[in-house]
């Protein structure tokens, strides 16, 4: 159903039937990454332990694998059973367009308004459209699951010609930032020399702080997603303090620093 309160103003909403298949697809898309992250974590842990404690370490591996599989299975089951909780937010989505204004509201987020004169680009992506402004934090994502999406796309293409997104640049930036963040986090914990580890820790604090700043500035993002990203970054940023505490308070040294 689409509201038409005025001739030139039209409001679009999301197709309720498209929610569950999309939410399931997103959940299962994340699974291989979860398995990979757990696998790498376990491998690193065992590589470190077997170096410091000898071959006997491997005897606990079957028990650990069982615990990890059980915990991951429970996590997936819980995520699956909570999928429907996102439906009210999905149903609250409204995108209104007039001749010169595009405005999006969702129940759990602040409204985002973009004027036609502000639009710098409209990019065509597989998931829908992205309406960009000079402020990179103020972007309206137009999902392809909107009822009458094709009609809206046509209307937006009269604002500005649709463009292909600059995916290569965005991906390169994202890979560089992730590598710097995870690399400095690992280096803070694994470098034998404390000075070098603290240098990596300083890089980690800087990269993490920049990430948090970006997350706070970005508009039109679910507060829950924002909060979990900020918490994740803050947790990673504890690494240099944990390393210092291990060194000075508990006198713990890495096995390879001796």
């Amino acid at each position: 159903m689409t509201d038409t309160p005025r001739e030139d103003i039209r409001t679009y909403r999301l197709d309720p039937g498209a929610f569950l298949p999309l939410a399931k697809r997103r959940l299962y898309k994340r699974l291989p990454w979860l398995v990979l992250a757990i696998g790498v974590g376990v491998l690193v842990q065992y590589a470190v332990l077997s170096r410091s404690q000898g071959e006997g370490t491997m005897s606990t591996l079957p028990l650990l694998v069982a615990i990890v599989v059980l915990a991951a299975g429970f996590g997936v089951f819980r995520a699956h059973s909570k999928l429907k909780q996102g439906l009210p937010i999905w149903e609250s989505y409204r995108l209104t367009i007039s001749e010169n204004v595009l405005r999006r509201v969702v129940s759990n987020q602040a409204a985002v308004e973009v004027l036609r004169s502000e639009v710098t680009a409209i990019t065509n992506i597989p998931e829908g459209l992205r309406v960009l402004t000079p402020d990179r934090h103020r972007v309206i994502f137009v999902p392809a699951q909107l009822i009458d999406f094709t009609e809206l796309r046509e209307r937006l293409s009269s604002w500005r010609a649709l463009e292909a997104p600059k995916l290569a640049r965005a991906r390169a930036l994202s890979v560089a930032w992730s590598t710097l963040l995870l690399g400095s986090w690992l280096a803070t914990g694994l470098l034998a020399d404390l000075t070098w580890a603290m240098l990596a820790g300083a890089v980690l604090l800087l990269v993490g702080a920049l990430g948090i700043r970006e997350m706070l500035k970005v508009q039109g993002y679910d507060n829950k997603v924002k909060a979990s990203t900020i918490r994740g970054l803050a947790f990673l940023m504890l690494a240099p303090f944990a390393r210092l505490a291990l060194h000075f308070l508990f006198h713990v040294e890495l096995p390879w620093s001796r």
Partner: protein
Amino acid sequence: MSWTPPSPEDLQRELERVRAAQPVAPGKPAPSLREHLIKGALRGVLLWLLLILVFLAAWYFLN
């Protein structure tokens, strides 16, 4: 199709009409970012404490 930008007054009126076309979603307002952060941090700390307790218990029984 050529497009001429509206005057600031016309644009303001149009903006008001667009806002009026989007009624506020019914129900309880969503928690703020601060609420989410505090709730999540508390849950995280409790989870870590629980994990440490489980680890200590396992250590105690295995030794």
